[in-house]
């Protein structure tokens, strides 16, 4: 290249880069430093590669239901008996869940269970139909539509074989024969409480919203939930102020499980808004109140 041309291009590129530098310096919100990009790509690749054999070795619905029942039995031994108030809450959750489940692709025996732990801001599902929701998550709910969207999300993890595929992957990794009684004991129960792959979470969000809307609920229930999650996430993520903090944060965030597998709430929120716009659901803003009906006798809750 001629030197004069090199100089012209050099200064053009330098100007462009400095403009980028200026804009990025003026970003009002500090960017968290993490290995999420690499982890996301690795998780994507791992998920995509594991999905191909899944197509050819899929479990039958009967097998999946049987596995789900075994896993649910293990959960039943770990949770305490519900109070009458919590039982009423569970009844309410089941009613909403059954309404949403009517529109699922697969006809499976879906069940809905409340875990009476107010620190548990989570919901999860098991293969074949069992769905669990934590007390902490229910405490955050402001409307029935939010509950419907959350349950729709969990339901779609079952409906779209995410749970079944997880069993298959774990069985393959641990070399388990799923037909043998007790083989599932080797799969840690906490595995189901962690999230799924980013793509699967997006799919569950997307399809869960459709289920909720088909069942007469507002898609804004999902929007409200994700907004609340986004707020919590922002409080959770520590924005490093120096390279030293960056490195320590990097180590912590790479080890922590939650944000590795789940997409960021802001991304889920963006998808929810995009779907609302694409499906022209903007007018479905009215939400039903979160209302549990109880009977009280002598100052105590009863069924």
């Amino acid at each position, binding site marked *: *290249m001629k030197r004069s041309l090199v100089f012209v291009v050099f200064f053009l590129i330098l100007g462009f*880069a400095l403009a*980028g*530098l200026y804009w990025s310096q003026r970003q009002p919100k500090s960017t968290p430093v993490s290995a999420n990009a*690499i982890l996301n790509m690795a998780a994507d690749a791992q998920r995509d590669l594991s*999905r191909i054999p899944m197509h050819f070795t899929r479990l039958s619905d009967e097998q999946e239901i049987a596995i789900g029942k075994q896993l649910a039995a293990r959960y039943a031994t770990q949770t305490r008996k519900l109070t009458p108030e919590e039982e009423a809450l569970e009844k309410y959750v089941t009613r909403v869940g059954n309404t949403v489940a009517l529109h699922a692709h697969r006809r499976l025996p879906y069940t809905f269970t409340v875990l009476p732990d107010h620190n548990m801001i989570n919901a999860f599902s098991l293969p074949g139909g069992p769905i669990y929701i934590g007390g902490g998550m229910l405490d955050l709910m402001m409307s029935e539509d939010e509950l419907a969207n959350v349950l729709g999300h969990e339901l779609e993890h079952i409906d779209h074989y995410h749970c079944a595929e997880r069993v298959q992957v774990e069985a393959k990794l641990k070399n388990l024969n799923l037909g043998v009684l007790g083989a599932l004991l080797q799969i840690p129960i906490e595995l189901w409480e962690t999230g799924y792959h980013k793509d699967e979470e997006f799919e569950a969000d997307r399809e869960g919203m459709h289920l909720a809307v088909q069942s007469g609920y507002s898609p804004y229930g999902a929007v409200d939930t994700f907004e609340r999650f986004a707020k919590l996430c922002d409080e959770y993520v520590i924005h490093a102020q*120096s390279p030293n903090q960056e490195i320590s944060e990097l180590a912590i965030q790479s080890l922590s499980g939650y944000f590795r597998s789940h997409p*960021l709430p*802001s991304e889920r929120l963006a998808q929810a808004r995009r779907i609302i716009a694409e499906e022209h659901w903007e007018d479905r803003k009215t939400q039903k109140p979160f209302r549990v009906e109880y009977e009280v006798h002598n100052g105590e809750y009863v069924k």
Partner: protein
Amino acid sequence: MRLLSLPILGAVFYLTAKLAALRDDHHQRTIRGLFAAAGSGFIALLIWFEVPELWQPLAFIAFAVLLSEAARAIKYYSITIHSHALSGLAVFTALTANKFAPQTWHTIPLHALAAIPVVAGAYWLAKRLGTENERHLSLARVAYTWVAAGLVVWILEEALRAPWIAVGWIIFAVALSLSTRWIRYQQLAWQANVVGLCALFRAYFYNYDLEQKFWGPISLRIFTISLVAAGLYFLSRKAAPEERFARVTAFFHSFAATGLLALLAWYEYPNGWLAPLWAAFALVLAIVDQRFELEELPWQSHILAGLTLLRSISVNLYVTATWHGISVRLLSLAIVAVIFYALSRLIRMPDEWRRLDIHHVYSWAASAIGGLLLWYELQPLSIAVGWAVFGLVLFEYGVLRKITQFRYQAYVAFVAAFTRIFFANLTAGEPGEFWGPRMYTILPLVLIFFFVYAQLPQKGKEEDTGRDRRWHFDLLLAYLGTASIVALFYFQFPIEWVITSWAAVVFALLGAALLLDRPIFLHQGLLLTVAVLGRGMAHNLFGAGYFGEGDWQGRYFVLSSAAAILLASLFFAFRLRGRFSLPQNASPWTRRLAMIASRPEQIVFFVPIILVTFMLALKMKSGMITVAWGAEGVLIFLLALAVKERSFRLTGLGVLLLCVGKVLALDFWGLQTRDRWITLISLGAALMFVSFLYTRYRDTIRQYL
């Protein structure tokens, strides 16, 4: 009474001794010596008892000088011994006089003043001692000059105020070293060294604690220690007793002086400014060395620079103070970096080291500091851009000045910038935002990588940057550029659209390979084509949801658009066929890969065909798959005719045969009536069309097949 009797007795004894000298035999000599000693003793007693305490040193030394001169005059050298004893008394009385009730003249204690004549006398005696014995004279000179020097050191210690003692001593040491040059007496040089050492210790143990101001902003510590250091620098050049000690002396005093000043800087500026001060000091030493070629100074520069680097990394990076609103970290480390670059140019080194680019340790250190400074000062999002810009500037300077190491530093900066985007930039911005921080921080990197790549010479053009090419930095940059844009698109576009965006990159890469005549872009294009296939199969086809999503806007359009772009890339791929020569003397694997790269149109054709074929198989309703494959086969065949490519034609025919096989093996038996009819009609039409083409263009087609 004593005043009268003692001198009389002394005189009598001297007279007796003189008389005894008239008979010069062995016994007389002994008696004479005893008489002379008695005479000196009586006079000494007279001095001891009658002379006031403060005047005794003067009296004793004067008497000693008198005796020595007398010995010279009358050639009676025995009494010289008396001079030594009297000198000893003079020193003793000087050191002990008025010890417990010091009187002063102005601020100087009188006993210190009283010792001055002793010093003068000692030097007098060293010069004019009355003896014929050379060995005696030599030893006496050594002893008298050392005693005199010691006394001067003591006088200065007594007479001066505490902060100035070290200064007084170093001035005395300088005076001694200058005297050595005038009178050529080596003992003075040794004394200069010892006194200089005393000054050094005194300054080290006392003067660093001085806090009071001397003049304006200059503290007493700065002034006194600077004077001591200056004296030591002087001694380093002038205080060598012999030539063979010159190097040791120079190193010792010079290092001591530099150490004093470096420590002084520590005391005066214990914050963020110490590192630049040390760096500046190292630079000054290097400049002085350039001018005067002083062997020890470059070593001192190296040590100071090393300390500066340690200090910069361990302290300055964490300084949060500001100076007139500007970060002290920024200012101080920027100064250090600039000085280090200057040092890499100025510091004197053996030619062999220079040839090995050892002096560029400094430029590497400077660039490392610069890079770290950017890391600390910029927002997390800006750091990658900052490093890339820094690398660009280093590279251009390296090209302009033909400095290889600067370019190597630039490459490291580029790799760091590229790595950084995976930790901050790729996940930045709001979802759904197109022109966001991700774009405007990664696109400049891509431009910079390709711009730098474009400046590296092509094969055969041997320029200064030819070495970079031999180390494959050109390949590195080209891959960094492409990988950056591939990663950017991975995060920028919705997840299913990634393959379409990558297919567009393939198109651009093949176009670039053709226009710029650079095979690297062809290789990258082919690799990315394979990546498109892998991702398309694993993510878009087998990774897709189990239900629905087969609509026009979903997987069909995504995969079809990617396949269409890849097929459009055939325009470039055909022109690139066989364009680049196969490498000679390469390994079998390399040759095989080169063979594949020499037929790029094959990969660029088969990848989209595989994708589309699988898409049709997986996403269409089972009854429509055969129709779709039939249509695909016909289109492939037409394309093959248009581009006159045998493998394409065979592929088209293969797909059509696949249709026939599927119809016969599966479709015919399992389809609903409507689908069965549609399938048979479509297949029949397709086969008739091919048959028609075959009949009409039989010869041509035979030729093709």
